[in-house]
């Protein structure tokens, strides 16, 4: 028997990284919100790697934080090691990556959710989703008959939706970490006319610390860097990670057993390693590489479980063991949890708008892995956008979107809604056209105003933000105006560094633009240098040093914005538009891009198609 269990503004289905951000955002914006979880002990679980951040992903965490999200703060509070990746590369790809105490992280996030006003965390599976009879709201039904009504629903089902676990020839209906899967909701969605896909992802073994010979591995310590959140005070480095390598023997074992891998289809699609691949994928795709990195990472401070990063696999259990034991330092390894592949239902993300609302279902949103993405950070990023927009809609306010030139959140969502995902979508810096502008150091400058507008940024933080931006501008102006002295001591400095002596009267900014000199280096010439916070120094250095390139990229953004302003009317009849290629017409009709710029990025839409659209627009203009 069903019963009416209550009526709220927003219901979020699933309490993973997307769900937590969505629920927190909606509740903090003043909406009465319920966050459903299948299992109260699985809130904000990290079922794969015990880490947050990484190339591109670290950027997302900072952007979520800038919008007023929780992931960065929770990661900062529960990290056991942190490093800045890609220091040897360039400022666009500097990325924070932290090892996380998995259990503590979950507890922390659960408590934040529990303590947030307007927000109820409720254990319960949602097995049916339908519109209310008047069509104005949504009903979510639990197996025990509770019917919960909400003006907006955010689906954040992760890998639970009709999930099943696969290890070699073994297959079992299940969510991750042995928690039961969500059954029933898929059918309800199909009934609504929503197109579902089936995606797979995987995770490696967890092994026992005492069975690993760390003396044969390279140790990796943390670094003293800035935390993820602009509100956190500092970082913690209390644990070490270890690096070892696969070898020819490992690869032979994989090749011999490749036929038994369910994840490996035998087909190589796409070019290059475009997502987080399993070890069997890596070995088969890159036959020339004689070894691959393997990181051994602790799952937390109160556990002996270690994560074997780089060895994600769905090969049979005994093959996984054989493969691990062929690796230096893992000769006697004991497996505690077997690596597995997980298969789950997700939606065709082309059905969504950039607010993450379904185009055909007002008030229904979705975020995270259900949208075909992979990764905690990608999930959180979508979660906060969906949560904010659900709340804005309930409150009758204008939607909030992030465009491609404003953040990786924009890139991620725009890719999902305009090109779609045909494999789990992972963020990468190369997915952005403007990555020199979308740096992790300036995520706050890019997105805090949007978070403030939504109502997720406190006065205190807003003032601190404004002050920081002011300091950066002042210091940049000062460096541009400050001239270098001409003393003999200065000349010596350049001779010692083996670098050309500068011309008389050059500015400190110009000096900093030399690739070989850092902001710290030129301090010797800079008597009036103010005492500035490290994050201000970092940003000033990048913005001055690469100012020409940044300007270049800003010009590209201008061109992008110009094309973005060309809107495609909703009544465009692509199917009957003569001149469009057949594939172009089909894609345009299905996706119905909002702007010409989006149309241009749809796979299958050719340059000639764009010309046809331009001329059609000109024709319409002429008719008016």
């Amino acid at each position, binding site marked *: 028997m069903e019963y009416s269990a209550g009526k709220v503004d927003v219901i979020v289905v699933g309490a993973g990284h997307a769900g937590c951000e969505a629920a927190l955002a909606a509740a903090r914006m003043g909406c009465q919100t319920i966050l459903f979880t299948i299992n109260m002990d699985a809130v904000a679980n990290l079922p794969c790697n015990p880490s947050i951040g990484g*190339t591109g992903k670290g950027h997302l965490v900072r952007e979520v934080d800038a919008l007023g999200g929780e992931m960065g703060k929770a990661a900062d509070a529960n990290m056991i090691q942190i490093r800045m990746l890609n220091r040897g590369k360039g400022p*666009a790809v500097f990325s924070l990556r932290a090892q996380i105490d998995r259990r503590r992280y979950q507890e922390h996030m659960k408590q934040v959710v529990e303590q947030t006003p307007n927000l109820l965390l409720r254990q319960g599976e949602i097995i049916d989703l339908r519109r209310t009879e008047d069509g104005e709201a949504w009903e979510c039904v639990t197996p025990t008959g509770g019917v919960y009504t909400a003006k907006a629903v955010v689906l954040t089902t992760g890998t639970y939706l009709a999930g099943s676990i696969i290890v070699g020839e073994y297959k079992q209906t299940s969510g991750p970490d042995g928690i039961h899967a969500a059954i029933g909701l898929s059918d309800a969605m199909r009934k609504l006319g929503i197109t579902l896909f089936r995606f797979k992802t995987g995770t490696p073994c967890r092994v026992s610390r005492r069975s690993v010979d760390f003396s044969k591995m390279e140790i990796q310590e943390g670094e003293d860097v800035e935390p993820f959140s602009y509100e956190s005070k500092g970082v913690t480095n209390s644990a070490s990670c270890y690096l070892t390598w696969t070898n020819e023997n490992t690869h032979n074992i994989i090749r011999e057993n490749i036929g038994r891998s369910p994840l490996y289809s035998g087909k190589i699609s796409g070019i290059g390693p475009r997502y987080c691949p399993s070890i069997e994928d890596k070995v088969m795709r890159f036959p020339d590489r004689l070894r691959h990195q393997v990181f051994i990472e602790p799952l937390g401070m109160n556990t002996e479980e270690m994560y074997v990063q*780089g060895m994600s696999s769905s090969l049979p259990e005994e093959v996984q063991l054989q493969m691990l034991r062929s690796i230096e330092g893992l000769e006697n390894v004991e497996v505690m949890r077997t690596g597995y592949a997980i298969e789950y239902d997700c939606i065709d993300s082309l059905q969504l708008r950039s607010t993450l609302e379904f185009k055909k279902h007002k008030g229904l949103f979705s975020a995270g892995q259900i949208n075909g993405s992979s990764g905690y950070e990608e999930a959180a990023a979508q979660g906060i956008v969906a949560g904010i927009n659900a709340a804005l809609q309930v409150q009758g306010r204008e939607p909030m979107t992030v465009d491609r030139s404003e953040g990786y959140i924009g890139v991620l969502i725009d890719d999902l809604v305009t090109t779609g995902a045909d494999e789990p979508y992972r963020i990468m*810096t190369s997915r952005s056209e403007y990555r*020199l502008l979308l740096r992790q150091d300036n995520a706050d400058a890019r997105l805090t105003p949007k978070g403030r507008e939504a109502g997720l940024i406190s006065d205190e933080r807003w003032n601190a933000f404004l002050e920081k931006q002011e300091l950066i501008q002042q210091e940049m102006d000062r460096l541009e105006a400050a001239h270098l002295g001409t003393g003999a001591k200065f000349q010596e400095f350049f001779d010692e560094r083996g670098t050309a002596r500068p011309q008389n009267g050059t500015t400190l900014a110009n000096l900093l633009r030399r690739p070989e000199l850092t902001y710290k280096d030129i301090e010797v010439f800079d008597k009036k240098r103010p005492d500035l916070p490290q994050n201000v120094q970092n940003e000033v250095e990048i913005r001055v040093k690469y100012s020409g390139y940044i300007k270049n990229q800003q*010009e590209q953004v201008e061109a992008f914005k110009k094309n973005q302003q060309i809107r495609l009317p909703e009544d465009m009849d692509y199917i009957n538009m003569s001149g469009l290629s057949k594939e172009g017409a089909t894609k345009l009709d299905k996706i119905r891009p909002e702007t010409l710029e989006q149309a241009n990025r749809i796979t299958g839409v050719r340059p000639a198609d764009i010309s*046809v659209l*331009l*001329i059609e627009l000109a024709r319409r203009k002429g008719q008016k």
Partner: protein
Amino acid sequence: MHNTTIAAIATSLGTSGISIIKLSGCEAFAICDRLFVCPGGFLSKAPNTITYGKIVDPATGETVDKVLVSKMQAPRTYTGEDVVEINCHGGMLVTRRVLQLVLNAGALPAEPGEFTKRAFMNNKMDLLEAEATMDLIGAKADKAAKVAIQQMEGALSKELGQLADSLANVCAKIDLSTDFDELDSFDYGPQNVARELGPVREGLKRLAGTFDSGRKIRDGLLVVICGRPNAGKSSLLNRMLGEERAIVTDIPGTTRDTVEEAISLGGYMVRFVDTAGLRQGDSLDPVEKIGIDRAYAKMESADMIIYMIDMCGDLDKQVQEAQEMCQKYGENTPMVIVANKVDMCGEEEAIKLLNNIQGAQLTSITLSALNGLGLDKLQDVILKQCATEDDLMGQGILVNERQKQLVQRAIAHLDRAVIAGNAGIPLDVLYTEISSGVQALNELTGRYIDMEAIDKMFSSYCVGK
């Protein structure tokens, strides 16, 4: 997309044996049927056939002309739509009348370039091919037409495509190296980028270099004829043209403005500009002075300068002036010193005189503009300037300012990327220069174009094509 049918006179507006009226659009057959009378009726004719019959004014029943009508069915036509071509045998008056009947029967007058615009929109050609088509129609000489055909067949698209692929390859390697920490043994740094961009830059620079040749072929070789008043410049021009176009008199300074004429010389178009006589002194009236200023301006942009010495005039002053011209323009522009009127003043003296003039790219010729002596030699010298274009046949050529500017923009960005790479600027930073270069090439091939550009391009182009 188009539910209108357009029509225009497709042949040039002048008296000629045959004039063609072209119709394109879904109603093309039906409209033609309303005027065209032939055995069995026009609609019953098979596609891709030519039918003899007559054009009859439906209002009066009067036969206007006897015509041949071609029927071409979509989509395998120039525009991708149904096309009808009416070959009229009458003169201009009749042709215009037939067009009027076609318009009365429901066709709309075509806008400039609209046939090609429709072809472009119907995916019959890409942007570069459409541009080339317009060149072809504007082409005044054989060679220009050949180059245009070549570009129309996609020589430029193909070459740009290859260059864009190379750039994409560099970008992919940068992406791989920046995004994947795991692929640390993938050793790809700024210096690699600098090295690999080399061939792409060379390709683009070669293309940029073809603009000048492309322009010469398309717009014609610009030859400026200058010299003292009454040296015989106008006579030479008339000789070349074979008709009295410039004003020739015995009064110095008759040619007050620059006069330009184009002729076809060995298949190339050559534009001769007769300048006002380079007279100096206070006696110049203001109009004459303007003429001289224009003459100097023309010389700046000339592909070749001919300085003509009047062998019957004041030789010292002319030799001095010729020498000055050689110094002023000789570095950049091929010079020809022509000693004219050798029929009257003696060839030997002229040869001696010419030997005294030195210059970087100098040719000397003795000539009689009056009786044509030495004219063939001068034509050879001019053709030599054109003949280098043969080297370009078979390759992509930039034919207009739009293309040139975009290629130069791309080169500038890649140049900066190479400098940055050699200086060790990180990959993700110098990537911005490469992507700006790619963007310029995308604009060139039409991946990125704005509406204004399209409209401008197609309207600068004659009606009926």
